């Protein structure tokens, strides 16, 4: 489990230390505050650890990381990730099971990461990033643009997900928790996505009915992706899952059930990082933290600063709750105007 991350001069983060991380971790903040950048930064680091010396991989960790940062953030040169106007370079540090992974580089860095130290042992598990948009409708475009054209457009979070999703299921027994989660996910969308090999086309099946993917709801496709990944063994009990804007395309009722499924997966050992703009997500995770007596670290950008809390202590003042109160004030002002 990742227990701590710190960033210095990394994009919008001049200085950030997020420690005491747990099974589920939530980050909130307005648009452009850096939520996705943070998740991608952690994702790039843990994927580097996972890809280093995997199979026939021969590249150094620094080269893998350089490649990962370049294709995940899709900047002209990775030095562009250094905070604009910063007097020194970028530093990133992550603690995983008491072992550190850290790197740093300057603004002029193009191809070579100047400093990288990793004490994290080889990791067999796979981590995965679920972006805000579903990929089922576009996975062929993602693969084409990355593997044939080698163009910017779909970053590594999309590319890695498309590749993972395409893996054929392995034999053997799945984790009971994953099997239960799959049942719950399929119950939630009342069906499942199937691949028709003859047509090389995806369909959504509900009972005996079959629907084209084009007329299938976004939320259904989003949930189907996780269903597949829990079934094809790409994810295991030590995987780390990054869920960007978890609420996108989900009705609050489905969202609540989806969060419960994520909580059940986290109990098995899967670590989950979630970013959100949603009042319902904050409230639901707060209730899970309180009722299950678990820690849910909460990173919130509010009034021009990043602050760390734990939802087991309650919901601190934050931009989402503040907005709900602002709407309330608008409504009572409306009553007299």
């Amino acid at each position, binding site marked *: 489990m990742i227990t701590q991350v710190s960033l210095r001069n990394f994009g919008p983060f001049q200085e950030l230390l997020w420690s005491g991380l747990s099974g589920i971790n939530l980050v909130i903040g307005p648009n452009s505050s850096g939520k996705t950048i943070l998740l991608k930064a952690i994702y790039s680091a843990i994927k580097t650890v996972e890809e280093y010396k995997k199979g026939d991989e021969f590249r150094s960790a620094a080269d893998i990381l350089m490649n990962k940062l370049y294709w995940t953030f899709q900047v002209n040169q990775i030095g562009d990730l250094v905070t604009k106007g910063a007097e020194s370079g970028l530093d990133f540090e992550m603690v995983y099971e008491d072992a550190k992974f850290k790197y740093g580089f300057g603004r002029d860095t193009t191809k070579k990461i100047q400093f990288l130290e990793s004490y994290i042992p080889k990791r067999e598990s796979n981590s995965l990033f679920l972006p805000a948009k579903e990929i089922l409708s576009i996975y062929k475009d993602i693969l084409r643009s990355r593997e044939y054209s080698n163009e910017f457009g779909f970053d590594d979070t999309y590319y890695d997900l498309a590749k993972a999703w395409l893996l054929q299921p392995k034999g053997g027994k799945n984790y009971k928790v994953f099997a239960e989660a799959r049942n719950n996910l399929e119950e939630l969308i009342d069906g499942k996505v199937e691949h028709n090999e003859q047509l090389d086309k995806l369909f959504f099946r509900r009972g005996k009915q079959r629907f084209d993917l084009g007329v299938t709801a976004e939320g259904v496709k989003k949930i189907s992706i996780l269903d597949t990944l829990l079934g094809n063994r790409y994810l295991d009990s030590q995987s780390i899952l990054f869920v960007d804007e978890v609420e996108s395309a989900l009705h609050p009722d489905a969202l609540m059930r989806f969060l419960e499924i994520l909580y059940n997966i986290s109990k098995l050992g899967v670590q989950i990082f979630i970013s959100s703009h949603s009042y319902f997500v904050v409230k639901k995770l*707060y209730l899970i933290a*309180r009722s299950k007596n678990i820690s849910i670290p909460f990173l919130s950008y509010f009034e021009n600063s990043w602050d760390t809390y734990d939802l087991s*202590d*309650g*919901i*601190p*003042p*934050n931009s989402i*709750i*503040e907005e*709900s*109160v602002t*709407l*309330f*004030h*608008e409504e*009572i*002002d409306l*009553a*007299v105007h």
Partner: protein
Amino acid sequence: MIISESGLDFGPFQDSDLFHVEKSELYKKFKNKPKVAEFLVLHSTKTNQLLWIFEARTSNPKSSNSEDYLNYESEILEKWRNTFDIFVSVRIGRNSDDNGEVGKNLIQSKLSSVRFVFLLVITNAKADWLIPISNSIKTKLFAFCKIYNIFPEHIIVLSGDEVKKTGLVI
């Protein structure tokens, strides 16, 4: 005892569980009377000893604008905090309960483990207004709850209909 406030009858409560703070001589002796909530009462569940601090209102702020709401909210927070402080001041001996107005079970309650519950009842509240009021109040008391280890779910805002489900109203 039954206490009638804001159109509801709260109780019945044993005198030994109750401190009707705003009617007490102990409170009346303060020269510049701090604003206080209606009463404190021990009303426990099977597993937990709960000490409720009650404030009741008939409706949402009367003159409806956001400035008035903020005044309304800050008055409630002030009343809760003052009531909490007066009770604790008696318990730590900074004020004496000469007339025995603080129920003996309240005096004997174990301060380290009793669970304080701050309840605002707005008898005729619009249901959809309770959520933002509750959110706003909870976040304003975030630090206070953390300092005293008061559970965040124990800051409660209820309508008259909902409070009837708690068994605190006849």
